[in-house]
């Protein structure tokens, strides 16, 4: 199945597939085994994998990738409105439109590198966001966001008589259908939407792995370390960077399309700079340039976002109820700023800490710890040996 992949990569791939497919079981004990959150893991995983191809591999820091996410969502919802609730045409259009957008924006932005590139992409994204809110209201439905209506044409679908908006489906398989099982006091939920996203995530991961290991991927890494040398080695860097930009834009479009599939509406806030910043954060936190990093980062952030934003003062009081009242109130008063609506503050702090202390991200941190343990093990045995002699 994975011809051409090295043995380690084959193991990585198999490990990844098992982890993703067993997600609903593995994550259930952590309170994250329900479809909505699992879908978000998969979708943002795809987004971050794509972003990593541009940032981690090629070294171009884009601050406007949310624009492609938004474009993907709008395209998918329009497909649901006009053509059919089947997800396949919606996804194809999402990817295609995001690709065209990325080609245009990338063509201009990639004329520059470094901070200029970051500022240009940021400006493009803000521009798209402003336009989506103002002039493009006929397409984007402005502040309300683009939603499905009962009287949308949906020309390929049979007339719907149920009186409610139909569910998105994959050739009849409804995305929101879920099979529930009660095991050991936990509810395991197997949701069609999640497995659809999961299969696409696996595909996206596999494709990224192939890109990483290909001559093209090696060129991208070379661009990151020394573009000058590459030019004098007879390689035209611009088409390489543009290709990387378009590919990562299409990943973002795919993620945007999937967001619309699991929840068929699209709003301009998806294109804001904060959303672009979030994917940067996911990639850095996990480890830019690594295979697993971005997926881990996306999962990590979405998981803790979910946990932290649910905690409110009552929950905090319950946690510390055993402490003396004064201390309890003090702790609750401090933690209040970091949970619930304060999640973004925590996120910002985590972001800074990672950039300052762990620029290589979680994957790098884990490898370093592993190495240290291994080395200690070695030196321990070495000293034991010398002591024995």
């Amino acid at each position, binding site marked *: 199945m994975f011809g051409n992949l090295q043995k380690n990569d084959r193991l990585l791939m198999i490990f990844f597939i098992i982890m993703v497919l067993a997600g609903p079981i593995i994550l259930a004990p952590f309170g994250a085994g329900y479809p909505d959150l699992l879908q978000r893991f998969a979708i943002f995983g795809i987004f971050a994998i794509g972003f990593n191809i541009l940032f981690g591999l090629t070294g171009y820091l884009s601050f406007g990738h949310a624009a492609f996410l938004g474009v993907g969502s709008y395209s998918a919802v329009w497909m649901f409105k006009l053509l059919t609730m089947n997800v396949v045409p919606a996804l194809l259009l999402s990817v295609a439109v995001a690709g065209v957008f990325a080609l245009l924006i990338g063509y201009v932005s990639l004329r520059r*590198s470094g901070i200029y590139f970051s*500022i240009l992409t940021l400006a*493009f994204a803000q*521009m798209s966001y402003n336009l989506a809110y103002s002039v*493009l209201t006929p397409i984007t439905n402005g502040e309300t966001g683009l939603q499905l209506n009962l009287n949308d044409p949906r020309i390929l679908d049979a007339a719907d008589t149920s009186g409610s908006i139909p569910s998105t489906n994959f050739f009849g398989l409804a995305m929101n259908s879920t099979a529930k099982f009660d095991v050991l006091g936990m509810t395991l939920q197997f949701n069609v939407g999640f497995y659809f996203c999961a299969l696409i995530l696996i595909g996206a991961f596999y494709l990224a792995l192939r890109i990483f290991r290909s001559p093209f991927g090696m060129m991208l890494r070379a661009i990151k370390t020394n573009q000058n040398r590459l030019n004098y080695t007879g390689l035209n860097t611009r088409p390489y960077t543009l290709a990387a930009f378009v590919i990562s834009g299409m990943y973002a479009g795919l993620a945007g399309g999937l967001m619309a599939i699991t929840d068929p509406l699209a709003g301009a806030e998806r294109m804001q700079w904060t959303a672009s910043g979030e994917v*940067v954060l996911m990639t850095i936190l996990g480890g830019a340039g690594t295979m697993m990093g971005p997926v881990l980062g996306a999962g990590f952030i979405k998981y803790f976002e979910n946990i932290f934003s649910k905690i409110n003062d009552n929950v905090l009081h319950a946690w510390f109820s055993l402490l003396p009242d004064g201390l309890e109130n003090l702790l609750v008063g401090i933690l209040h700023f970091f949970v619930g609506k304060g999640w*973004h503050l925590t996120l910002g702090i985590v972001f*800074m800490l990672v950039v300052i202390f762990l620029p290589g991200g979680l994957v790098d941190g884990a490898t370093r710890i592993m190495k240290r343990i291994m080395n200690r093990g070695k030196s321990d045995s070495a000293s034991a040996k010398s002591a024995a002699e």
Partner: protein
Amino acid sequence: MDAILLQILNGLDKGSAYALIALGLTLIFGTLGVVNFAHGALFMIGAFCAVTLQKIFNLYSVVIDPTKTDFLGNPLKVKVPYVESWFGEVAGQAIINWSVPLAILFAIPIMVAVGYIMERGLIKHFYKRPHADQILVTFGLAIVLQEIIKAFYGANPIPTPAPDAFKGSFDFGAIIGFAENTIIYPYWRLIYFLFSAVVIGLVFAFLQFTTFGMVVRAGMADRETVGLLGINIDRRFTLMFGIAAAVAGLAGVMYTPINPPNYHMGMDFLVLSFVVVVVGGMGSLPGAVLAGFLLGILESFASMNEVKSLLPGIDQIIIYLVAMVVLLTRPRGLMGRAGVMEE
């Protein structure tokens, strides 16, 4: 003619804000070589200095006013702000009324301190790291700062009015010989422009006429050489960061009557100010000021109804469009030096 003049005037206040923020960004980039994504947050903190001072002035104690009674016949409890009880009613009310201009004095030490702490505590460690890391860490800092403000002041804009003396508008057209009521201009916007002009003038004079300024300018031109002269430039650059922070903060303080401050105003202005810096030329102070005013005025022209009906939405994107054209045709910007960050 009068319509054109009106648009130019309308563009001045936003242009002033862009120019002040861009000036600080350029100072920091030029001296320290750091791209500061948290600079917008400094502008916002300045604005919230004004909000805070207003709140402090409005702190009150409840006293019983024996001369009046409430509807039950009991003595009336009234809220008397401390400043009124300390300085007398007239002076106290004047102080409350003038809280925005007074906030300038309040904001300068705070902003310099914030800038100093930021530079010594964080930015300093990033001089030798890649630009991407600098962008990311200051971006994270911007999020943290704005979330802290949000936690304390809420998400809604807080009205912070100008002193009564400067409320309302005046007929600028009539003064300079146009027909009456053609160019009506609010007082505060004029004040904002004049204030910005003074601040910009002070910064330039400071750089031009003091030894400190000379070293800083030399450092902007060639950091290594100045380092070789045995001058401790890092120390001076730290202070420069404080000054840049104060400039952004003052821009924020005075902007509050024009637009009630909210926690995300910093980021809104930051993106545009970056564009301004790019258009003006990375590392060029006059370029930053010129481009700030130019783009502010251009934006104001783009929001005229005549223009908007011709090109819908142009007011939303004009600045970005200009930036792209400039970057692609003249990457060094309007007044940037050749070879500086052109790639």
